[in-house]
Each structure stands twice: as structure tokens, then as C-alpha cells.
């Protein structure tokens, strides 16, 4: 045990560190979802019974 109360011999591993790494990776690979108000409107009107040409 050193003056900071930490054991310098403890390796940088264990379940806590692993969880932190996974969380960091998740954040890096999944950027925050951007709120979007963009869309495409497709519209039609007055088909008037048309299905297809005669031939």
C-alpha cells in the first residue's frame, strides 16, 4: 500500500475495468441519435379509375 492508499501491484484488470471499456466502446461506436425532422412526402391525386394503358 502506498501513500495514496492504492496497491501499486494491482493489475489494471477485473470486472469494473472491463465494464468501463465496453461502455466506452459502445459510446464511440454509437453516436448519439440525431433528432431529425426531415422526410419525403410522396403524393398523388385524380387517378380517376386509371389502372394501365390499353396496350
Amino acid at each position, binding site marked *: 500500500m502506498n501513500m495514496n492508499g492504492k496497491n501499486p501491484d494491482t493489475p489494471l484488470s477485473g470486472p469494473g475495468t472491463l465494464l468501463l471499456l465496453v461502455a466506452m466502446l459502445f459510446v464511440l461506436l454509437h453516436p448519439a441519435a440525431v433528432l431529425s*425532422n426531415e*422526410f419525403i412526402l410522396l403524393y398523388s391525386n*385524380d387517378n*380517376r379509375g386509371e389502372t394501365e394503358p390499353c396496350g
Partner: protein
Amino acid sequence: MIEQVRNESDKPVLLLDAGGLLFERPMIPAPLLEARKIQAAGIIKAMGAMQYAAVGIAAQDLAVGLNFLAQQDDAPALPWLSANLESEAVPKGAIQPFILTRVAELSIAVIGLTDDQINTAPLSGPKDFRIRPWPDVLADTLKNVRGKADMIILLSSYPDEVNRRIAEEFEEISLIIQSGASTGAKALRLFGHALITQVSSRGQYLGRMDIDWNPSSRQWGQAAFRRHKEARGRLDRINWRLGRMEKRLDERERKENRDYLQLLAEKEQAAEEISRLERQVRTEQDQSSSYSGNFIALKVSLPEDPGVRKIVLQTRDAVNSVHKKTLEEAKRTGNVPASGPESAMTGWQACRSCHPEQTLFWQQTRHAGAWQTLEKARQQFNQDCLILSCDPADLRPGNGRQGQPAGRPAPGAQGRGL
């Protein structure tokens, strides 16, 4: 085409039809009624397969009665909209005044309005409905969507001038898609706070708008710019009139002239409005919603959805069979039609003995193969493809309709419809 747009962009797609979908007119000639009903049922099925979010009801859609629409309950059902249509004949919920749909991060309300002229027009089917005039219902319908929708779209079969009045009166409506009243296309134009548009009739085109909507401002870009321009024009006219009066009147007379004083007050109001609008124009670019729009030509060469194609082919065959049956019945009863395969015409072979040269020439024309084209397309009994107009107006030079089958598209403009 719709699938192509859905696949080529990562933006969500909202698909709407403003109405006038099923029939040409509210009155259908009796011999064509059964075939037209089959055709309309096929269209409803195909539109459902294309996953339309909402379809407005125009007057001609009610040609065979409202119940006909409600009976076409193939899944997925088509969401018919009309806020001013009342009826005891159809189950509750079959026709809705509006829908609220989620697109991107937005809640969009789509409202339907049907032109009330149909109340007095003759129909081919039962009049199992009543259309209330739009001023009786629209304010209440808007009250129902207020606070729930980020954007309001109106599908209206009222004429253009009525839709402009609606746009001026109800600022919360952002877009009006028209149907029913006229056949031509109308590019997007701003009236009040709403854009008004329609595509040309008979399914030749699909309208497309790429929208980036700001639910906080709920205004299209250039709304303030346009109002600013109008106010500047008004101020110019006032200044011109004031200038004329100042030439005629001396200073003392001006102080006593009521028209002059009124114009001065109007000038002050216009100047205040211009200054207010100038501030709005400056912030408009950051806050307002933007759009771009165009019409997509639906050519025959475009790839078709196999499911929709199947429905169209089944419908076409069913229509051809009905016409065939009608012709056979007419032949049996001796009521032979004037045109078509069972008509009393002798055929081109009878002409050959007396007019060999003319027959030879005719055989080299495309007209000689027209019947084979119809046979190949399994449309040889379809009266819509056979009836040639005998209206002398059709044969008059310069009208662009010479020799066209009645009510059919002109060559080169094919590929429309579903």
C-alpha cells in the same frame, strides 16, 4: 417507383393520395358500371398494397355510393379520410375525419375534405351520405388535432379558390393537396401559411416534396419574405397617391383633407409592418422550414412492385371478362354493339375486293395491328379500349384528340395509373 424512393434515401417517406382515385365522374354509363366497380376495387387493393398512409375522398369516389368504399375491406385497409362526410350506411371508423401519423420525429395530422357539390349531383349508386360544407366542420376538426400535431396537411377536393380561402383563414394548415376539381398539375405555391399543390390527373405523375420541418416555427421559408414584399408594394402605392395629392393640395388643405390624413395613417402602419417583417425575414432563414418539390413522371419502363403488378393484372383480366360477357349477352339478344369484336361491321377483308390499293396501304399502317396489340394485352373486350369517339369535335383539326379512343390517354403519355 415508391419503393425506389424508399430505398434510395434514409429519410422516412409519407405517402398520401388527395382523392379522385376511383372513377372519372359521379355518373357512370350503365353498360360500363360493373367493369368500373371491378376496376375501382382493384385500385383500392393496389393502393393498400402500396401502403398509402391516407386517401382523401373526392366527389367522384362516391359515384357508386359510400358503402362501396367501406365494403372493400381487404387487408391492409385503405384509410379513407373526410372530415365533412356523414353517413349512417357505413360502420363507425370506416371513414375518418383525420389521422395522426408519426414521420421522423414529427407527429403529422392529415385531414380530408370532400367538395359538397356532390350533394346535388346525380350518382350511379345510392346517395348513402351527406357532405357538410367545409366552414361547418374545419374549425372543429382543427381543434381536435391542435396540440397533438407538429404539422397539418389537408387533402381537399374543393376547387382551388376555396382551398386558397382555407389557407388564408386557417394559419395552422401547412400544406393542401388538391384533387377532383381540375385535371392539370399545380406546382407548389404559398397562400397564407400553406403551400397548395396537385399533380395532373390519370396517374401520369407522382408529386415529391423533400421537407425539413421546424415544429417550433411551423412556417415555410419565405413566408415572411413574401409578406414583406407585399407590404413594400403597398407602401409604394400609398407614397404614389400621397405624392399626387401633395401636388394638388397646399399644406393647409392637406391638414383638412380626410383622404390625405387617412393615407398618412396607412403609411405609418405599413412602415411599422415592414420594420416588423424585416426582423422576421432576418430570423426566417434560421428558424423556418424548408422544402423542395418536383413531379416524377411515371413511365412504363419504371420497375413495378410484383405484388401491385399482380393485382393490376388480375383486375385487367376481370374487367376484360366482364366486357366479354356483356358482348356475348348482347349478341345473344341481338343487341349488337356499334363497335368492338362483336359489332355489325364487316371487317377489313370485305373492303379488299373493291379497294385493293387502299387495303394494302392500310395493312402497312400501325392501325392494322391495333387489334393484335389489344389481344396481346388481354384487353380485346375492354370497351374503354375499343370505343372510338364519334364526336365530330374529336375529329376537328387542332384539338389534339383526333382518332383517340374516348377518354383514353394520348400515345406517348402512357405508363400512368397504378
